[in-house]
């Protein structure tokens, strides 16, 4: 009887460990399928606009920081609980994208990346967030 209990406890521990490890493993995101109109989309504000470090920073901190981290390194407190990697905004691969591609990924989203069209209503504010992330390059 004691042996059976020991085996049951051991088996349960192995299953729990395996499930935990599987849930902690993050897969890189699938390639984004971005509509053409977004790829060539033009910003409604200029680079260097004062709103980037005002509204852009404020909105990034409110909506993005919890997952993507203060510097966009993907190390926010909620990042570890995501199934998909939250990426690195300072990386060359991220910064090589067009403004419109970053806009689509940030504002329209998909899957675990929420849609922010209802939370950031103003078009200029959305672009201020995009440019704020542009400033995170290494």
């Amino acid at each position, binding site marked *: 009887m004691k042996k059976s209990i020991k085996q049951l406890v051991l088996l349960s521990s192995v299953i729990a460990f395996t499930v935990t490890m599987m849930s902690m493993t993050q897969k890189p995101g699938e390639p984004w399928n971005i509509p053409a109109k977004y790829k060539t989309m033009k910003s409604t504000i200029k680079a260097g606009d004062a709103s980037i470090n005002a509204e852009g920073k*404020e909105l990034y*901190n*409110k909506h993005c920081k919890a997952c993507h981290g203060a510097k966009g390194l993907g190390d926010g407190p909620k990042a570890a609980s995501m199934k998909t990697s939250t990426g690195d905004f300072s990386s060359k691969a991220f910064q090589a994208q067009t403004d419109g591609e970053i806009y689509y990924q940030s504002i329209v989203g998909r899957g675990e990346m929420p*849609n922010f069209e209802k939370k950031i*209503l103003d078009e200029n504010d959305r672009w201020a967030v995009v440019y704020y992330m542009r400033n995170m390059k290494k």
Partner: protein
Amino acid sequence: MKKIFTTYGMMTLLIASFLFTSATLFAQEETEATPEEPQKERPARPAFESGLLFDNATSTIQPSKTLEMIIQHRFGTMDNGVSDLFGIWAPSNIRLGLNFSILNNLMIGVGTTKYNKMQDIQIKYNVLQQTRSNSIPLTITLYEVIGIDGSADEKWGPDYKFSNRMSYFSQVILSRRFNDMFSLQVAPSFTHYNAHIVDTLDHDRIAISAAARFKFSPQSSIIVSGDFPLEIQSISEQHDVTILDSKPNICIGWEVSTSTHAFHMYIGSAQNIIPQENIMFNKNDFFDGGILIGLNVTRLWSF
């Protein structure tokens, strides 16, 4: 026609005057600094992070098709000290609410509160929205709370009618976001109760509320508010309005706001949660031990 205003009321009127004067000055300064022709007017970012500030409504309305769940909890007053862990073990009050934004400037809500089994229906409408160009320097909001007391019929005696349960709170909220750190609102209100169970209460009450936010980090703010019932002899049913002994609801606390949540942790003096109940019945004196711990949590879902 003797009118007796409380000191608090006068202070709040001064704040209101400051708000209007400052708004006009800011508008002039920023308009002069913008030589280009105005394009499409852009609404200013909301003055407050949430549509709720302690027990009060703010001018903030979430974007259309957003559902907001609200949990408001008020512990007992701290005047019994450590014997009831500063009110945490004392009888508490709680309200659960749901608000839904039909339009970007129109919200309706319902809620239920433990004290008096109060049910409430709320409507909030932004008549004017502050703009970034300051062509409109203030946000002006109309706010109405209809309360339905769910107590047993016997509470009102043999002449009970359903209308006895009804109370109304009507408010005009004037708010301004001065900059990314500081926002202020002033809100005169009129409260009416159809019936009371004692004669020593008025059916009508005018009050002035004020609230402010000082944002000190990306997600954290110090928030303060005060609801000041005005003791006005000319609308009072009492021979001497001072016997009403109304106490203001003063709150000070910490707000943490994220993309989908707002949290308020604070000390305040009123426990009734619903604004007309606080205005009409609060007897806790913030400066004489009548303070309690309050908590608010809001959660947003967009559709």
